[in-house]
């Protein structure tokens, strides 16, 4: 479903295949979209660094030919901060997930937004801890079943994109693994924008999330994303007009693009 749109295959370590991702996983789509965007920027494996924390999403740098750091749980952004501030000429991209970014790494996340440090963070939000077998995360929707919310999640989730906007990031957008072209464009916009960029990519995890929440097939999850994603313009119009926002629906599109003072930008 990703299609072969560009030169992303040049960026993959073929000697690391096969990868660890489950059949139907959405992470591969996001990795391809990211590499496609990086390739379109004209960046090279010599001047691009991928950095990640722990979790399924964070395994991505291991499949990419550039210099890369697969770090500790939640800490990818401060590692990336050290790389970027020491070598502002390198392009630094962080792969993370909802648990890595919003739970254990939440404080680093908001402070990186505040500093507006010149990193692009691609967060694969699958609503769950996939690698450890489907535990609830700070992004698990209310009522959803996970191994640690067996009676339905009773905590409200974080809205990662809005959090990044409030904390000061220069570029924020959200798409899903259904919206391949839009996601690729959004990542490219994040790479182009000086300062901190967050691209939240909602992805399907049929194994850890779908199975327990009546979305067993990958296709069913992708359809769920398609049906519940509301374009930002429409979402805002509905809000302004006081129309009821359908339960389970979420906005996709660009949350913010601005030019606040940023750190680590090559002068």
């Amino acid at each position, binding site marked *: 479903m990703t299609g072969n749109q560009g030169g992303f295959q040049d960026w993959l*370590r073929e000697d*690391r295949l096969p990868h660890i991702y489950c059949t139907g996983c959405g992470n591969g789509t996001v990795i391809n979209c990211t590499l496609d965007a990086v390739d379109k920027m004209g960046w090279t*494996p*010599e*001047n691009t*660094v991928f*950095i990640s924390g722990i979790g399924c999403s964070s395994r991505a*740098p*291991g499949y990419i*030919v*550039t*210099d*890369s*750091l*697969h*770090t*500790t749980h939640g*800490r990818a*952004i*401060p*590692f*990336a*901060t*050290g*790389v*970027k*501030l*020491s*070598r502002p*000429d*390198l392009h630094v991209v962080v792969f993370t997930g909802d648990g890595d970014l919003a739970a254990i790494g939440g*404080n*680093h996340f908001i*402070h990186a937004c505040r500093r507006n440090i010149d990193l692009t963070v691609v967060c694969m939000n699958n609503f769950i801890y996939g690698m450890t077998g489907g535990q609830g995360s700070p992004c698990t929707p209310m009522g959803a079943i996970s191994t640690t919310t067996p009676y339905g999640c009773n905590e409200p989730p974080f809205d990662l994109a809005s959090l990044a906007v409030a904390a000061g990031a220069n570029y924020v957008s959200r798409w899903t693994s259904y919206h391949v072209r839009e996601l690729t464009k959004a990542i490219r916009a994040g790479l182009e924008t000086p300062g901190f960029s967050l691209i939240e990519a909602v992805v399907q995890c049929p194994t850890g999330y779908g199975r327990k929440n009546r979305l067993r097939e990958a296709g069913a999850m992708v359809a769920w994303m398609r049906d519940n994603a509301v374009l930002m313009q429409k979402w805002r119009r509905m809000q302004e007009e006081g129309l009821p926002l359908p339960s389970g629906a979420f906005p996709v599109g660009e949350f913010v693009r601005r030019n606040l003072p940023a750190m680590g930008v090559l002068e």
Partner: protein
Amino acid sequence: MQGNTACAEGALAAGCRFFGGYPITPSTEIAELMARRMPKVGGTFVQMEDELASIASVIGASWTGTRAMTATSGPGFSLMMENIGYAIMTETPCVIVDVQRGGPSTGQPTRAAQGDMMQCRFGSHGDTSIIAVSPASVQEMYELTAKAFDLADRYRVPTFVMTDEIIGHMRERIAIPDAVGITPRRPLEQGSLPFAAGEDGVPGFPAFGNGYGVHVTGLTHDERGYPSSTDPHVHARLVSRLVEKVEGARREMADFTVTNPDAEVVFISYGAPVRSVEQAIRDMDDGRIGHLRLRVVWPFPDFALAAFTSARVFLMPELNLGQMAREAARLTNVPVVPVPEIGGELHLPDRLIALAEGYL
């Protein structure tokens, strides 16, 4: 000059060009000086949001080939432990200064201690080895911090400056050398596997941005750097090498002095208590007391104990309840007696003299 100032200046002289830190008493002066000085030498100072982030930023900076450091004290040191393990596993050179204060927990923020000696050695999970130095004067704060960078680069291992509030905050005159000898990090030969080591167990360093395309992971990895986390042989080979490259080099990196090797009663000391022992020996002025004073404390120079051929007892004054004494006791058949002092005061020389007299 103050001890903490000398530490920062020694680091800068050794080419440190990245400091990531978080304020904590009694180490804060190091961060403050770095904040002022780094921009003037073309380096980077960043105040991170906590100590987990501080050490993470230091490790990230080190992978660009930059000499990088952080400074902290007990509570912050505890927070750094996981990422210190990451630096050990990924063979990332970096320098961590711990200006020790009374613990556990928040303890005594403004009083000296040496309670983190075992934590620096064993604080991270898994089997590890690290290097630690311990200065006993403001002059040594400068010299040993500079030396820590060379050791960290030479062995590609986190290197600790284990100092304390007394040395960190006291002021003494120091002689700043015209230049500090710097041995640059040995680069990886292009075409070599990034985690394949030669005889000394230390691989060349593939700094980011040079086209090496190195994948660095805290997972157990093979010589290519690729995760291989279920193969017992890969794990045993890697972790054994990480430990052996340090433990096997303990003679090469040893740094200690021996006073009165024929003495029957011998003090072993490092850090601030060195000053008490030296005063006691000068006051006694009869050569009957020996002294082994350590500048490199980890790896512990086991062979140095054998220099005291007539020793009947080793007395070990420490600002803790007997941490390094346990290590010394493990390495000799001569009895090792801990001489603890906790609460922030340094051992009185008269107390040490009375103690030694009791054994003579």
